[in-house]
C-alpha cells in the first residue's frame, strides 16, 4: 500500500504559533478516565499548572497551556465530534510556573536516575503517546510483574501522508529526542533502543544516525516506505521480526513502542520540568497558502492554526485532524488542538466526498492490502448482515482501522465503516460475556 505522500511541509521549519487569545482545554485528551478538574471559574492560572488531575491508573494530568483567567468550565466539541468537559481560559500574558526551565540549553545529563522517578515524572507531566493513540506513557513504562522488556522501539516512521511533525522534530530536536529515548530506556531498564524511520525521510535518517553515535545502545533503522509501516505491530515486525499475537500487547513480545514526539515530551518533562502543554502540529493541504509545522499550545482552536497558514482556502470541503488515513473529520474550526493532534489537513471540496459504492467484484485487493492478513470484504459483509459471532471468529477485533482496505477498494465500498461497526459490537458482546460469568 502506497498512498501518495503529499508531504508538503517536510521542508518547513517548526515555528511557534503565537499564544492564542483563549484556549479550551478538554479533560479527556488520552485513552482512559477523563481527568478531574481542580480549578474553578475566575481562578488565575499559569502555563504548566495542573488544571485537571488524573483519575485512576489509566488517566493523565492536564496542565494549563497558557497564563490567564479561567472564564468557564463548559463543554467543547472535540475531534471525535462529541462534547466533553473543558476548561476555558482567557489569556493574559505568558507566564509559566517557575519550575520550568525555559532556556534553550540542551541538558544531556539525565536528571532522574531511577525508573520509578521517571515514571512518576511522566505521570505528573501528563505525558501520553503523541503518535496519535494518546495512551498514558506512565502505564506503558511500567512493566508488570512477570513481563519483560528487552528492547525499546521508537517510532519515527510517520507513515501517514501529509504529516511532517515527527519528521521536523527529528531534524530540529534530534538530540533532545535521543536524550528522551535514553530516559525512556532507563525507565524501562533496557540497554537497547531502536529508532525506525521510513526511508522517504533520508535527511532525518542521516541526522539521527549521526547524533545517535553519541548515545549508547540507540540505533537508527531505515524502513521500507509502506503504509501502515508506523502501526505498532508492523513496526515491531519490521524492526525485530516479532509478531504481536492477536489481542496481545507489545510487552507480550518483550518490547515497548514510543513515538519520537513522546520521547521529546519526556525530555522536556524530565530535563526541563516542562509538563506536556504544547506539541508540534502540521497544518497543511493542497490549497493551503502557507502550510507549515507549528509548536501549538494545547487548547488552541484549530481556527488560529488555519489563520497562521494563510486562512481557510476557498475550496475547503473537509478538515481532518490527524492523517488522511486514520484522522477524524472536524465539523468546526473551534475544535481545540489536543495532545493527540499531529496535524490539521484541509481538503479541497472535490477530494472531500466519497465516490458511489459499487458491488464488490471480489478482486481481493482488500485482502492483499490488509496488514494483519484479515479479509476486509468478509468482515464488512458479516457486519452488514449482523453475523457478529462469525465476525469475531474471523478476528474482526484485530483490525487496527488503518484504512488500507477502503483506500484500495476499486468499488469504493465503505469497508472500514462496517468493520468498525462490527468491531465495536463484537467488543461489546465480549464484555457482556465476561460480566455474565
Amino acid at each position, binding site marked *: 500500500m502506497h498512498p501518495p505522500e503529499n508531504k508538503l511541509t517536510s521542508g518547513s521549519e517548526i515555528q511557534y504559533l503565537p499564544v492564542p487569545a483563549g484556549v479550551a482545554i478538554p479533560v479527556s485528551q488520552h485513552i482512559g478516565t477523563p481527568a478531574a478538574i481542580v480549578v474553578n471559574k475566575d481562578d488565575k492560572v499559569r502555563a504548566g499548572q495542573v488544571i485537571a488531575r488524573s483519575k485512576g491508573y489509566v488517566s493523565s494530568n492536564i496542565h494549563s497551556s497558557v497564563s490567564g483567567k479561567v472564564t468557564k468550565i463548559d463543554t467543547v466539541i472535540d475531534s471525535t465530534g462529541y462534547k466533553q468537559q473543558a476548561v476555558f481560559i482567557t489569556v493574559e500574558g505568558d507566564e509559566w510556573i517557575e519550575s520550568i526551565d525555559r532556556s534553550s540549553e540542551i541538558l544531556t545529563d539525565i536528571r532522574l536516575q531511577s525508573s520509578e522517578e521517571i515514571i512518576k515524572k511522566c505521570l505528573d507531566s501528563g505525558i501520553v503517546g503523541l503518535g496519535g493513540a494518546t495512551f498514558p506513557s506512565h502505564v506503558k513504562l511500567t512493566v508488570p510483574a512477570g513481563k519483560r522488556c528487552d528492547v525499546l522501539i521508537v517510532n519515527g516512521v510517520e507513515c501517514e501522508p501529509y504529516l511532517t511533525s515527527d519528521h521536523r522534530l527529528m531534524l530540529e530536536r534530534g538530540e533532545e529526542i535521543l536524550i528522551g529515548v535514553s530516559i525512556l530506556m532507563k525507565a524501562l531498564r533496557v540497554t537497547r533502543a531502536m529508532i525506525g524511520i521510513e526511508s522517504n525521510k533520508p535527511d532525518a535518517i542521516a541526522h539521527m544516525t549521526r547524533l545517535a553515535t553519541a548515545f549508547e545502545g540507540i540505533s537508527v533503522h531505515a524502513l521500507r516506505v509502506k503504509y501502515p509501516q508506523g502501526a505498532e505491530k508492523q513496526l515491531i515486525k519490521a524492526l525485530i521480526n516479532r509478531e504481536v499475537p492477536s489481542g*496481545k500487547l507489545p510487552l507480550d513480545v518483550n518490547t515497548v513502542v514510543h513515538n519520537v514526539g513522546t520521547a521529546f515530551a519526556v525530555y522536556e518533562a524530565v530535563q526541563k520540568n516542562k509538563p506536556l502543554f504544547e506539541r508540534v502540529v502540521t497544518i497543511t493541504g493542497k490549497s493551503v497558502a502557507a502550510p507549515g509545522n507549528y509548536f501549538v499550545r494545547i487548547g488552541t482552536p484549530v481556527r488560529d492554526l488555519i489563520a497562521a497558514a494563510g486562512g481557510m482556502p476557498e475550496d475547503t470541503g473537509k478538515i481532518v485532524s490527524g492523517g488522511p488515513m486514520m484522522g477524524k473529520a472536524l465539523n468546526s474550526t473551534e475544535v481545540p488542538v489536543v495532545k493527540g493532534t499531529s496535524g490539521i489537513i484541509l481538503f479541497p471540496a472535490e477530494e472531500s466526498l466519497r465516490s458511489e459504492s459499487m458491488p464488490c467484484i471480489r478482486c*481481493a485487493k482488500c485482502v492483499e492490502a490488509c496488514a494483519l492478513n*484479515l479479509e476486509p*470484504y468478509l468482515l464488512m459483509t458479516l457486519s452488514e448482515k449482523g453475523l457478529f459471532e462469525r465476525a469475531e471468529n474471523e478476528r474482526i477485533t484485530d483490525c487496527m482501522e488503518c484504512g488500507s482496505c477502503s483506500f*484500495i477498494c476499486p468499488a469504493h465500498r465503505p469497508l472500514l465503516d462496517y468493520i468498525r461497526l462490527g468491531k465495536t459490537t463484537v467488543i461489546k458482546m465480549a464484555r457482556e460475556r465476561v460480566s455474565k460469568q
Partner: protein
Amino acid sequence: MSNLLNVSPSPHAHGKETTRKLMYGVVIALLPALFTSIFYFGWGAIIVTSVSVASCILFEYLIQKFMIRKPVTITDGSALVTGLLLAFNVPSNLPVHVVIIGAFVSVAIAKMTFGGLGSNPFNPALVGRVFMLISFPVQMTSWPVPKGFETAYTDAVTGATPLSIVKEGLKNGEPFQQLISQIPAPANMFLGNMGGSIGEVAAVALLIGFIWLLFKKIITWHIPVSVIGSLVIFTGILWLVNPEKNADPLFHLLAGGILLGAIFMATDYVTSPMNPKAMIIYGCGIGILTVIIRVWGAYPEGVSFAILIMNAFVPIMNTYIKPERFGEEVKHG
C-alpha cells in the same frame, strides 16, 4: 468557501482505483491476442468478436433497463470483457446466431440471474462457451486454417487443432513422436499459427497481456503460475513415464486454451478465490483437471470444464482456506 464541512469516518483518501479502470485494463491486456487473431483469421475474427461484444453489452443493457429496472452499468466494462473472452473461446467461423445465443447464455443466464457483476458463481464467458459446445458441437469444433484475410468467414477451410490431432492419434496407437510431424512446430504454435479458438492461439500475445496485467497490478501471479505450473509438472510426469503415449509438456502448454484460461479466464475476479493460498490450490486444481480431461476425457480440450469445476469450489475454499493471520504464531526473533 461553503459553510458546511463534510464529515465522514476515515480514511479520507482513496487510491483512485475503480472497477472500470480494472476492466479496461483487462481489455488492453486482451488487445495483443485480438490483433494476432485478426492477423490469422481475418474477417471471421472481426465479425465474431464484434457480434459477441455487442450482444453481451446489449443483453446486459436490456436486462438492467427493462427487467430489473436498476441503473444501467454497461459502461463499467465487465460486459465488454465477457464479450471479448467469449469470442476468444470460439472458432472464427462460428455462425452469428450461435454467437448471439452464447452471449445470451453468458450474460443473461450466467451473470444477470445471479445478480449481475460480482454475484455470479461461474465464469460467464465459459458458461456461454460450454453451452455452445454442447448445443452446437459441430460448429464449435470446426476450426478454420489460419490464412489471415484470405480465410473466408462462413465456408472457411477447416482443419483439426493440434490437440485433437494428438488426441486422435494417441487413441489410434500412434506414438507421440510420429504425431509431432502432423502438428505445427513449437515456434509456430508460440506465435499462434495454428487452428484453434480466436483468442487462444498466440501464446506470445497472451503472455504480453499477462505481463501487462501483472505490471498494472490487475491480477497477481498466483493463479496463472499455479495453473501453468501444475499442468507442466503433471504432463511432464506422464511424458517421462511414457513418452510414446503422452505428449510433452511444451505441447500441452502451447496447444489449446491453457494460456488463455490461466491468464484471463481463471483469474476472473468474481469467480476465483480471495486469498493467495486458496488461489494456488484453485490454480493447481485447474491445471490438474485440464490434464485429466485432455488425457483421459472425451474432449481433446478441458480448460473450460476445469475452470468451471473449480469455480464451484471457490465459495467453500473462501470459507475454509484462510490467509495466515498476522500474529497467528508467536514468533521470537
